[in-house]
């Protein structure tokens, strides 16, 4: 090849590279920060949540991205380990907001780390989605905070009512909760829910997350001879261990684990002791209500984490879709503008139906996602859906 031809080929190649580089720059990226536990008993929740954030971002990209003001935006999920503690949650908050400059938190998990994050997001005008169960993070004081899954006020009353109706002999219940912000706030709502159905709370005990020895507290729970135990905000692996110890001590009663998100975690540590346990944060994907997309993502989840997809993780997927819908409606990628329209939109939830944000009557501002409450029970080593309660407020919104 002559020198002139070589030069022409080189120029053409440089031109192609330049055009590609320009097209890459044309795609705008919106970073979605995630503050989740990636280690400890809640690690699978965090890993799965990050996975579903990525899956939703891929889906948005495949659908042509987020179209705002003639530009195309796509999402990028960035996750850090908050270890379910306030101290680590503070570090994660600083990293996300100060180093990564995120303007949207695609999801956050654990009331204590979320409080740390929220203290920054609200001040710095960052929109935050959270799965945290503590009611203290909601209300008109926090206009940029939105809850992406059902929380105690939505789950506990129907779950406990169902458990009581199915087991009318329950007269007493004993509580055990993790000794942190989530546990403490869940306990307050659970107490109200049990007392509302005429059940007396005989004890309320606390343990530190990460505890490996549950035999002493199991001895206490067993000797109380309560008709039911409510393990509140205990994650599945720890709840399973408590139930196993209770069974070994000969205790036979009604078991309620509101935040048990799936069968695998419970069974891994609890074995057959988890039989008949009522749960409020799990979903089944083998029934007629499961959609093809749910089944597909559930397989991806099992492959990645060894556990089924759960309601916490679905919240991270739904947040991405809700953001896309709200940004396109607001024609803005500014957090305040997006937050303003979020309560007005409905969007396609991974639950297979429409979802929206509401709950003004309960929390004083419309920031709670409206999705079905699913009551499930362990039957043997398998999770079975017992009841699905659709949100009345959502029905009215869709009808409008």
């Amino acid at each position, binding site marked *: 090849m002559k020198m002139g031809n070589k030069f022409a080929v080189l120029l053409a190649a440089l031109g192609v590279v330049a055009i590609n580089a320009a097209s890459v720059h044309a795609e705008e990226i919106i970073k979605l920060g995630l503050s989740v*536990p*990636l*280690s*400890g*008993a809640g*690690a*699978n929740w*965090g*890993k799965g949540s990050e996975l579903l954030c990525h899956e939703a971002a891929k889906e948005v990209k495949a659908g042509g991205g987020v179209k705002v003001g003639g530009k195309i935006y796509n999402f990028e999920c960035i996750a850090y*380990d908050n270890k379910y503690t306030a101290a680590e949650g503070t570090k994660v908050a600083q990293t996300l907001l100060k180093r990564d400059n995120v303007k949207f938190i695609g999801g956050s998990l654990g009331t204590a780390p979320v409080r740390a994050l929220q203290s920054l997001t609200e001040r710095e005008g960052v929109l935050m989605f959270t799965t945290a169960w503590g009611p203290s993070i909601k209300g008109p004081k926090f206009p940029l905070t939105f809850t992406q899954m059902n929380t105690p006020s939505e789950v506990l009353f129907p779950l406990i009512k169902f458990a009581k109706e199915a087991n009318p002999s329950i007269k007493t219940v004993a509580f055990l909760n993790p*000794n942190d912000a989530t546990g403490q706030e869940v306990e307050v709502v659970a107490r109200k829910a049990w007392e509302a159905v005429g059940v007396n709370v005989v004890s309320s*005990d*606390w*343990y*530190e997350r*990460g*505890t*490996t*020895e*549950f*035999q*002493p*507290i199991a*001895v*206490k729970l067993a*000797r109380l001879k309560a008709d039911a135990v409510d393990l509140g905000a205990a994650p599945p*692996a*720890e709840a*399973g*261990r408590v139930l196993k110890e209770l069974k*070994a*001590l*000969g205790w036979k009663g009604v078991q309620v684990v509101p935040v048990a998100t799936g069968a695998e*975690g419970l069974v*891994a*540590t609890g*074995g057959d002791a988890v039989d008949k346990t009522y749960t409020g944060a799990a979903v089944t994907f083998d029934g007629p209500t499961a959609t093809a997309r749910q089944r597909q993502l559930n397989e991806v989840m099992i492959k990645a*984490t*060894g556990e089924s997809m759960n309601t916490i993780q679905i919240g991270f997927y739904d947040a991405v879709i809700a953001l896309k819908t709200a940004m396109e409606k607001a024609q803005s990628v500014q957090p305040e503008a997006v937050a303003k329209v979020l309560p007005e939109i409905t969007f396609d939830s991974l639950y297979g139906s429409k979802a929206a944000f509401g709950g003004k009557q309960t929390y004083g501002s419309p920031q709670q996602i409206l999705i079905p409450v699913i009551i499930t029970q362990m039957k043997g080593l398998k999770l079975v859906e017992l009841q699905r309660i659709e949100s009345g407020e959502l029905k009215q919104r869709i009808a409008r």
Partner: protein
Amino acid sequence: MQTALQLVMTGLQIGSVYMLFSLGLTLIFGVMKIVNFAHGQFFTLSAMLVAVLVPWLTTRGVSLPVAFGLGALAGIAVSIVVGLLLYQFGFRYFQRDLVGSFILSIGFALLFEGVFLHYFGGAVRAVPPIIDGDVSFFGVNLTAQRLALGLVALAFTLALYWVLSATRLGKAMRAVSIDHEAAMLQGIPYKKIVFNSFAIATFLGAVAGAIMAPISVITPTVGADYLVKGFIAVVIGGLGSVPGAIVGSLFIGFLESVGGYFFDPSSANMAIFVLAMLILLLRPKGVMGNG
């Protein structure tokens, strides 16, 4: 009465694992005069390998007890190799240097925690029970698995006692812990004794991890919990004292059991820390310490 007996049995069982763990800590302190904060990582490594290998082997047709035996052997062997590497390239140069060894061992602990998180992931792992069934006597209920664990821990403790009191190695270890220079003047091979002591301590930590795996929740940070309790047991009993480590561990076990019953696990944990502070104030050398 039944409740009291149940609490005693629970305390004994919990204390027996702390005992194995803290014996390793106190042995290292006695001989090398250092506190090894990386000791919990040997426990974690062994427990994690059991938790990884048991399901892997059972899905390949190996029976559960055999899979556990192989997993435990592998876990203990790998932990000892890692422990001796840490000794050879680290702790060997920091003997009788509390500050230096403190920084080194904390560094190793953080390094290994990161490595375990990277390679094993942060998720909880569980090992199925190796021995099924419950044991009941005088109204006390225990799983057969926990009873076996207690007996194994007791057997290893008795074996260590025998080694320390009746063998040349044990006598040399005791001599070194009392006065290493005098021991050397008597012809005791100091370096070899220290090396062997570190290996035995690592072995005890790894055994504790392996036998705890089927009854605990295994994560890459599980050793940290045992390190704190084991260290408090050693402080209460007296740093470097073998009987002190045993007494301290059983005491912590009973406190967890009784405190967890009459109050709750969080309060029991707080009580353990308060007690450690009180003992440090009133008897800085521990209940059985004489150093």
